[in-house]
């Protein structure tokens, strides 16, 4: 099994599986449930370490979340593990009514999110989970920017009483944070300070925002990059303050822009400090099979696309003040 090191970063799903084990050592009432995907989701690390606290429910996602609710009622902390598509589409009623409504202590990892899944295609490339989960009362939602962020989110999640959904990407991407990184609900982080435009990123898209900022710097544009792993609750103050400073913004998410992270940022800005804003993400389309590079190109989610959007909103800002 791969170990994390700067020279050989591991896929986020491996960091997830290893963190399950780490938490399992500390929290003896933590359970992991699987619906026949543990070698893909990497929940298998936990199965190997704690076979007595690992439940196999078979290919039955509605049952996966219903059983998790029952286990939470008995005082356990279940992590029902499946792909985000099945957690938020197939089993939404169970997640909403059996878990969220009574505020049960269930931690839901949504695996295989957005574009970089495998070549499984439309049915498995989950793009709507942010929108769906964000609309559920009592639920908290986070999308980690790197492996350290994921570990911090999982640690905070298990310390948080109530339901949590967090995204786990099946991919390796650059480290943004150090090992001592901490995650707090409703707190964003400025990764790079700037004055001309704010790039709001969540999940893996924050890395691409950093790359976009480097591209913009070469053109003499001073971009601020804000990472918002906590999508619900979201850091309203930081969003308004940063947009207040730069006067325009781009949001970027590895998901559909309809109802998702960009919508959340837009809602905050519309109600606090309206500025020109462009959203990067999947634009009302399903995401088909394809290589990761092809998919990011097709859906206009590369750093170049983010930089182009920055130019657009900066022009709108200038046009408005002129």
């Amino acid at each position, binding site marked *: 099994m791969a170990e994390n090191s700067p020279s050989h970063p591991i896929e986020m799903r491996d960091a997830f599986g290893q963190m399950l084990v780490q938490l399992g050592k500390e929290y003896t009432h933590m359970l992991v449930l699987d619906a026949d995907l543990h070698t893909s989701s990497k929940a298998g690390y936990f199965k190997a370490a704690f076979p007595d606290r690992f439940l196999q429910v078979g290919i039955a996602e509605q049952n996966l979340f*219903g*059983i998790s609710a029952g286990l*939470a*009622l*008995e*005082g356990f902390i279940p992590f029902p593990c499946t792909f985000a598509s099945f957690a938020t589409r197939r089993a939404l009623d169970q997640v909403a009514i*059996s878990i969220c409504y009574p505020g049960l202590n269930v931690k839901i990892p949504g695996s295989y999110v957005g574009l970089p899944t495998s070549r499984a295609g439309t049915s498995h490339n989950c793009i709507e989970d942010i929108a769906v989960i964000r609309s559920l009362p009592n639920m908290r939602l986070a999308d980690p920017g790197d492996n350290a962020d994921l570990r911090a989110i999982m640690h905070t999640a298990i310390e948080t009483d109530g339901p949590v959904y967090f995204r786990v990407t099946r991919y390796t991407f650059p480290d943004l944070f150090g090992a001592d990184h901490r995650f707090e609900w409703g707190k964003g982080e400025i990764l790079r300070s700037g004055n001309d435009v704010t790039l709001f990123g969540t999940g893996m898209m924050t890395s691409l925002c950093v790359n976009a900022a480097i591209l913009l710097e070469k053109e003499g544009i001073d971009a601020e990059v804000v990472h918002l792993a906590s999508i619900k609750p979201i850091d309203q103050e930081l969003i308004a303050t940063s947009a207040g400073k730069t006067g325009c913004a781009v949001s970027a998410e590895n998901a559909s822009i309809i109802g998702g992270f960009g919508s959340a940022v837009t809602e905050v800005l519309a109600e606090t400090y309206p500025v020109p804003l462009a959203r990067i993400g999947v634009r009302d389309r399903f995401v088909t099979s394809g290589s990761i590079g092809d998919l990011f190109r097709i859906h206009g989610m590369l750093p170049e696309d983010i930089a182009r959007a920055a130019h657009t909103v900066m022009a709108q800002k200038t046009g408005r003040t002129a």
Partner: protein
Amino acid sequence: MSALTPEKKRELEEAAYQIRRLSIEMITYAKWGHPGGSLSMADILAVLYFQEMNTDPKNPKWEGRDRLILSKAHSSPALYAALTLKGFYPRNDIYTYCEPGGLEGHTDMTRTAGIESSGGPLGMGLSVAVGCAYGLRLKENSRSRVFCLLGDGELNEGNIWEAAMAAAHYHLDNLIAVVDYNKVMAKGFVWDLMSIEPLVEKWAAFGWDVLDVDGHDLEALAAIFYRARWIQPRGKPIVVIGHTVKGRGIEMAEFNYKWHTHAPEPEIADAMLRELSHRYSRPELGYSKLGDPREKESFYGGE
């Protein structure tokens, strides 16, 4: 098990009578609810709460209690009635049914003592009960039982059979499902809308021990639950199929899908409750809020 003593039988009969009365009271006062399924499971609840189940109204979360997951959560009035009769909360609370902050239209475990899960969408309760039963096993609590009260119509839901498969796979013989087999769904007969027969064979094929009983016979129910708890367990979950009559106790509602979701007008409720008192050979007693007309809804001109 020896037969019920005459006193115990009278107590269970009184509980069943009051569950029926209070169900009609709260549904009428709230102007919303499901009388048919509340009336059909009144005897099952009477035996569970006043004979079979260990509960402590003063300590509703007592670890050693038996749990009841109401999967057919639309029949909550009967459960609310059983809980107030048992002393979980004051009797007058039933008139908060369907009011903000009161007894929820379906079930909300965070608001009402004795309610073990939140529900409403059909087909979901058995999975939750499987989780509870599995959790009890992990905690090595071998005394408590998990009862899951299911409707017959919700057996159309796929989730039920996912849970049925899992309960047998995990050998959860501390789980006792009870089917309120009243033969009537929201819009007609089960056999007409979507057949669930052969029901005994279905559960057996899924790996369950199946017990069949007249769901209105208090003595038979008490005997079957005793058997389910003490005699039957052998590594298989147990289902008690209780054959019942939808709307049992009030003639116009019996076997009548029109009383699945329908709140009676106060005058109708008054007649229903008088009929019910006759059936139970009790002093004639009508609807207690007959002289207490509630304000009509005024939002956008009312309902």
